[in-house]
Structure formats: C-alpha cells, structure tokens
C-alpha cells in the first residue's frame, strides 16, 4: 500500500502541474509557471523513493544523473533556431521511456494474468504502441527539422498500403497481447509502433512539422496517463491526461493559425500531392538592388514594417536588425515588426528568437494587429521570410499554403526582400510577390547584408 502522505504529495504535484500549465498560458506568469512545474516534478521524483522499497537504488540514481546531465547540456547548448527539433527529441525520448516502462510491466504482470483486470493489459498495450509511435514520429520530425532528411513530403507508391497494413497488424497483435499476455507480442507491437510512427510523419511537409510535434506531444501525454493507470499512480494519470488534453487543443489552435486542418496535414500528401511544392528556384526576371539603394529607401520612409522570418535567425542577423531599427527610430521613422503566428518554425518561435536579440516586446505586432497598417507603410522589409507573405495563400487554391492567413506585405508602397537566393521557402512554393513591380530584392547572406545596410543608413 502506498503511504498516505506520498499520495498527498502526488496530489500536490498534480495541482502544481495544473497551475504550471495555467501560468504558461500568459506572458506575465509563464516563467514562474514553468518553474513551478519543474519544482513539482523534482519533488515527485524524490517522493517516489518513499512509495515503495526499491532495489537497485544506486543504479537508478546513476541513471537519473546521466539523464539529467544530458538534458541540461542539450537544453543549454541548443541554438534557439534549433529549438523546435530539440523539443521533438525530448518528446520522442519521453514516448520511448513510456513504451519501455510498459514493456517491463507487461513482462511482470504476465504471471498474474488471471487476476489482473483485462483493462490493465489494454492500457499497457496502448502505452507500448503509442509510445513507440511517438518515439519514431518524433525522431523523423527531428531529422526533418535538422535537415538530415528532406523537409519535403516523403511519399512512395505503396505508402498508404504499408501504413494501413502496419496499423491493422498492430491492432491484431494488440488483441493477442491483451487476450494472452506475453512479452513477445509486446515487443512486436513496439516494432510495429515504430513503423507506424515513421510512416505517419514521413509524408508531412516541412512547414507542417511543428504541428505534428504538438500532436505527438499529446500522444506521449496519453501514454503517460495510461502508464499511470497500469502502475496505479495517480500523478502519472493526471499529468499525462493534462498534457494529452492541453496538447490536443494546442495542436488544433496551431493548425487553425496556419489555416490547415489536421487531416489535411497528416494525409494531404497521400491524397494527391496537395502539400507538394515545386521546390525549385525560378529564373524569371526580378529587380535587385544594393545595400546603398535600400538604405535610401528606408531612411526616407515615414513608416517601415519589418517582416522577420526563420532565415533571419539562421543567419544570426537579428542583432544587426535590432540596431538598424534603433537607428531608423532615431531618425523619427515609425518601425514595427510584423509577427506572423507561424513565423520561424513553430508558432511563437519568432517571438523567442527576437526576444533573444533583445527586441522590445511591444515592438512586435501580431498579424491581426498590423495587417490593416501595411497599406500605410512606405516600405516593408522582409528578412528571411517567404511563405508568410506569399499571396498564393489567397489566390492559388492548389498551393500547399492555400488558406493560411498571410501578412499583407503586398499592400505597402514598396517591398524589399532580403534573401540569400531565389530558393523558395520552407513550403517549397514560388512567391509571386517577388516578381511584383514594387518589389526590390537585396541578395546576400542576411547577417552580412544587414551589416552593410546598417552602415549605409548610418552614413546618410
């Protein structure tokens, strides 16, 4: 029997997790919320040693130490641009841990199959399968975001059949594992889970990957909840369910910020290449200019709007950009940053990246707040962004980003694109705005060009 005070401690930790999620929903309380969650998790990890007489104590403590060091080093070292893939990785290992825990539990419960309720085995099998799906899916999303494999949808002819086959086989094996609990169907189920997870994520296009991370995050939450049921641990049940429910809602919110439905994201590519882009550079004529010309356009404008994108952060140009905006500010020019909800690689990612460069929070204007201002802007400076200002989202029903709300950069008097090349954006489609008569292109590495632009503006 678990001591009462331990159960009460778990209850306290569960309440802290609820408050942590609540805190994370508002900018003012977010950091404290996260710290509360961390404190509760650490506290619960200490308390668990009092729940039962545990063997292998030193090995367990050593394993915790190894994981802690790996986690801290990874979290401290990661570039903020690479943060989405780190979250994917952390989510994947969590799912993997849940699947392994359930496999051990299946083996341990097998001798008592007659007295253990069937539903316990259902929950065990669920945890094994979904944990493996989450693990494999997260690893594929990691590889996509890290560009270890192509960011474009990966489709091969037999994919729907293979996916369907693996899924049906998994259900059959799951039934076997529940009816006559043994280790081997569990292991087989884990392997099938890995296959299903990989096949689920491979056809997803690069721009949609963050939403899949959020979905897999919710999956892992549910596996942890099921694991809690199996292990008779209320804290795991509550924490896992909270993450599962909150993660599902968050996935929905993200998808709607991009104007996409979840079904379309997951299975769109299978239904006839609707998320496929051309992925090739075009050789249509464009107008380009040097930093000097662009400096003059900026310095004599009254109102400038900056549209930052992932390319800005990859080139580490956000610090120079902030300086440029400060110089323009001193000249009395009104400058705002227009933040698309999915700028960067995840919703809210751009806010994190600009905050890192110490851009004042109040200069960042969300899309709904700024879209009507573009027509009053003299110059829009698009730095390392593409898809978020692509009019194809409004005009081309077949385009992968069709339906996504965009920033109306095209309404401004002049548009300047700061780009490394004519390569299309993450979604892999051409941007008609690049060929518009009022558009000027400033080619080059964003950091280098931004430095030149900054000194040119200062010299004026």
């Amino acid at each position, binding site marked *: 029997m678990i001591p009462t005070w331990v159960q009460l401690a778990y209850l306290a930790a569960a309440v802290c997790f609820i408050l942590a999620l609540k805190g*994370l*929903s508002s900018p003012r309380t*977010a950091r404290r*919320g*996260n*710290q509360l*969650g961390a404190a509760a*998790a650490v506290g*619960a*990890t200490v308390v668990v*040693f009092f*729940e039962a*007489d*545990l*063997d*292998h104590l030193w*090995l367990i403590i050593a*394993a915790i130490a190894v*994981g*802690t060091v*790996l*986690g*801290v080093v*990874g*979290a*401290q070292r990661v570039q903020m641009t690479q943060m989405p893939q*780190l*979250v994917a990785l*952390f989510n994947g290992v*969590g799912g*993997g*841990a*849940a699947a*392994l825990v359930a*496999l*051990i539990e299946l083996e*341990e419960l097998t001798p008592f199959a007659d007295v253990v*309720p069937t539903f316990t085995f259902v929950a065990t099998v669920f945890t094994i399968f979904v944990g493996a799906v989450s693990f494999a899916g997260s690893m594929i999303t990691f590889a996509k975001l890290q560009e270890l494999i192509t960011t474009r949808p990966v489709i091969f002819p037999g994919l729907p059949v293979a996916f369907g086959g693996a899924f049906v086989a998994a259900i059959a094996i799951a039934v076997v594992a529940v009816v006559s609990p043994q280790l081997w169907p569990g292991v087989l189920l884990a392997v099938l889970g890995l296959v299903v997870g990989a096949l689920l994520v491979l056809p997803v296009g690069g721009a949609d990957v963050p939403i899949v*991370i959020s979905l897999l*995050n919710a999956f892992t*939450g549910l596996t942890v909840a099921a694991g809690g049921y199996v292990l008779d641990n209320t*804290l795991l049940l*509550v*924490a896992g*369910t*909270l*993450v*599962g*429910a*909150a993660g599902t*809602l*968050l996935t929905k919110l993200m998808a709607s910020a991009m104007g996409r439905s979840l079904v379309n994201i997951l299975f769109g590519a299978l239904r006839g290449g609707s998320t496929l882009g051309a992925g090739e550079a075009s050789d249509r004529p464009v107008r380009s200019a040097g930093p000097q010309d662009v400096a003059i356009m900026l310095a004599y404008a009254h109102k400038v709007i900056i549209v930052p994108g992932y390319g800005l952060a990859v080139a580490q140009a956000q610090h120079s950009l902030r300086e440029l905006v400060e110089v323009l*500010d001193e000249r009395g020019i009104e400058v705002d940053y227009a933040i698309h909800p999915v700028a960067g690689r995840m*919703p*809210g990612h751009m806010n994190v990246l*600009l*905050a890192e460069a110490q*851009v*004042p929070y*109040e200069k960042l204007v969300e899309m709904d707040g700024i879209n009507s201002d573009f027509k009053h802007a003299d110059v829009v400076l698009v730095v390392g962004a593409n898809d978020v200002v692509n009019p194809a989202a409004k005009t081309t029903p077949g385009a992968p980003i069709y339906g996504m709300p965009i920033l109306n950069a095209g309404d401004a008097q002049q548009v300047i694109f700061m780009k490394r090349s004519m390569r299309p954006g993450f979604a892999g489609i051409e941007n008609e705005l690049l060929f518009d008569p009022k558009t000027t292109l400033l080619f080059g590495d964003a950091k280098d060009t931004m430095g030149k632009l900054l000194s040119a503006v200062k010299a004026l």
Partner: protein
Amino acid sequence: MNDSIVWLTIFVLSVFVGIEVVSKVSSTLHTPLMSGANAIHGVILIGAILVTGSTDSGIAVAVGLVAIVLAAVNMVGGFVVTDRMLQMFGKARPIASKPASDATGPSGDAA
C-alpha cells in the same frame, strides 16, 4: 464505488482541466507552452523508477535504466529549455526602457 470508476472520473476531469487551462493562450506562447507541457510528461520518470526498482530480472533492470535515462532527459531538458525561452521574454523588457535615458526614446510618446 468501483475502483475503475474512480480512475475514469480522474481521467475525465483531467481532460476538462487540461483543455480549460490552455484555452486562452496567446499565439506568442504556443512554443513555450508546448515545450513546458512536453516537460511535464517527463514524469514518466516516476514510472520508470518504480518498475526498475521492483524487478529482479537483469534484462528488465537494464531496459528500465534506459527508460530512466530517457525520461530524465525529457523532464529535466524540457524544463530547462522552456526556462531558457521564457527568460528571453522577460529580459526584453528592461532593455526596452534603456534608450529612454539618452534620448526621448520609446517613452517620448507619452510626453
């Protein structure tokens, strides 16, 4: 009351709480919230510790230790990286008032 019903009750209520607490999140915080929620499911660490500590089979202990390492990475790394993200949000504010000391700066609007 039946034990399973108690568990079902906890589960269903937790679903509602989970949906309710994040329903008003601003899109600015989607990424940190996802990351924070991700860290919370790292409490599977507790499950990993429990199963590892109560088994005698050598293989199960080895697998359990792997699960502990993975879960600890998830939990600790998740909270640390979320804190790093949120720390930047906080830091951006005091800097915003810095230019005000040498010129009118952003506070000039109020004058």
